[in-house]
């Protein structure tokens, strides 16, 4: 360090010599500084400015495109998920409806069967009642006819005109023997 300063101090003309040798010149130096500033101005205004703006614009567009793509992918995924959920829900509803329809059909069928059975039983009961009534009526008619025939036969056999009391007694007697 000391040596450096000593060398500089010992050679006061070193700078001047270097300046003269290499042609370092105040006005020329300033002129070249101005030229260099001119270069910087030109490049900044006509090259770096517009081109960097374009690069930024393109980068922004690419980023926007990527964001859009991500958004579309997300929407697609959401849509697929929604569709899958809707299909699942529709399946569940369909299964439920089928089950309900099956259960409804079974209940209806059962109800109709019961009704049919009840109707059939009603019809049978009515038929049975009607049959019983007919049998009772026919039995009464038969008994009456039989009594009349017995009375007529008795009257013809005996030649006796039967009174109502006789007829009644003969009928009862005959019916008691036939009825069993």
């Amino acid at each position, binding site marked *: *360090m000391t040596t*450096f300063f000593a060398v500089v101090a010992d050679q006061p003309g070193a700078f001047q010599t270097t300046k003269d*040798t*290499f*042609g*370092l*010149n105040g*006005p*020329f*130096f300033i*002129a*070249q*500084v101005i*030229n*260099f*500033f*001119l*270069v*910087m101005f*030109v*490049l*900044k205004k*006509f*090259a*770096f400015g*517009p*081109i*960097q703006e*374009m*690069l930024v*614009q*393109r980068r922004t*567009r690419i980023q926007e495109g990527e964001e859009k793509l991500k958004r579309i992918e997300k929407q697609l995924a959401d849509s697929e998920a929604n569709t899958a959920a809707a299909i699942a829900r529709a399946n569940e509803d369909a299964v439920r409806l089928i089950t309900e329809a099956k259960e409804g059909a079974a209940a209806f069928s059962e109800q109709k069967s019961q009704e049919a059975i009840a109707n059939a039983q009603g019809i049978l009961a009515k038929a049975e009642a009607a049959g019983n009534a007919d049998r009772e009526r026919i039995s009464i008619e038969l008994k009456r006819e039989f009594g009349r025939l017995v009375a007529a036969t008795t009257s013809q056999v005996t030649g006796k005109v039967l009174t109502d009391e006789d007829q009644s007694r003969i009928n009862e007697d005959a019916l008691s023997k036939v009825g069993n």
Partner: protein
Amino acid sequence: MRFVSISFFLWLFGLVTAFAAPAAGHAAEHHALPLNAQPLHSFLPVTNSMIMVWIAVGLIVLFCRAATREMALVPTGFQNFSEWAIESLYDFLENLMGPHLTGRTFWFFGSVFFFILVSNYLGLIPGVGTVGWHLKDTEGHAAGFLPILRGGNADINMTAAMSFTFAILWFYWAITENGIKGLAAHIFAPKGNFKGIMLVMMVPIFLFVGVLEIISIAIRPVALSFRLFGNIYGGEQTLEKLMDLVPKWLAFLPALPFYFMELLVGFVQALVFTLLCAIFLKLICDHGEEAHH
């Protein structure tokens, strides 16, 4: 592969012709490129390198206009190429300095890189540095050579203009990112987690390191200037010397292989200058960048 083979044979042939020329007793007329840029006229304060800088600015303007006249979201042609170039450099710097610093300073680093690149390649156009006047003094003796055009970065004034502009901007960015206190702490404060007696012992050491750091910071623009100037001037000088080694009708040949090397050097030097500036800025703004993250 064919390109490499052709380049190799041309280079080999160039070497043979270069070494054969002195043996043949050829007395080449030497006109070395002067070390400094010269004014084209005593009353006109315009140097030959300034003309090249203006040509470079004009070309950059034309290219930028062509690239950005009808900007489209799907780029083609010039727009596509310029977007590729600018985006590649931006990404490269972003990896180095982080998004905040790059966004803030790209206008400078981009300008430095593309200007140095264009300027270096313009300096390789045949005629630049070789077409001019042989000067004579009042007594009629040869007094040097004045090329009409000279590579922009083969002029120390141009490289110094860029370096010292960067030095001033570096100082501005360092203060705005760290604050004056932060900048001083960054340079002088002990680095590491020292406590107690160790801290007391480290303070003078880091104060001394800070002084060295300030000297290093002060030397940076000088080093940047001379590194770029030396490489570009050296390259042009090499090409001229190689051309002087052979008869004029063969002058193109020995220099031809070195043109390919100079194309590489032109790109590498543009990258080195930009990279060094970016690293210097990153080093001083490290805390600021961490705070932004």
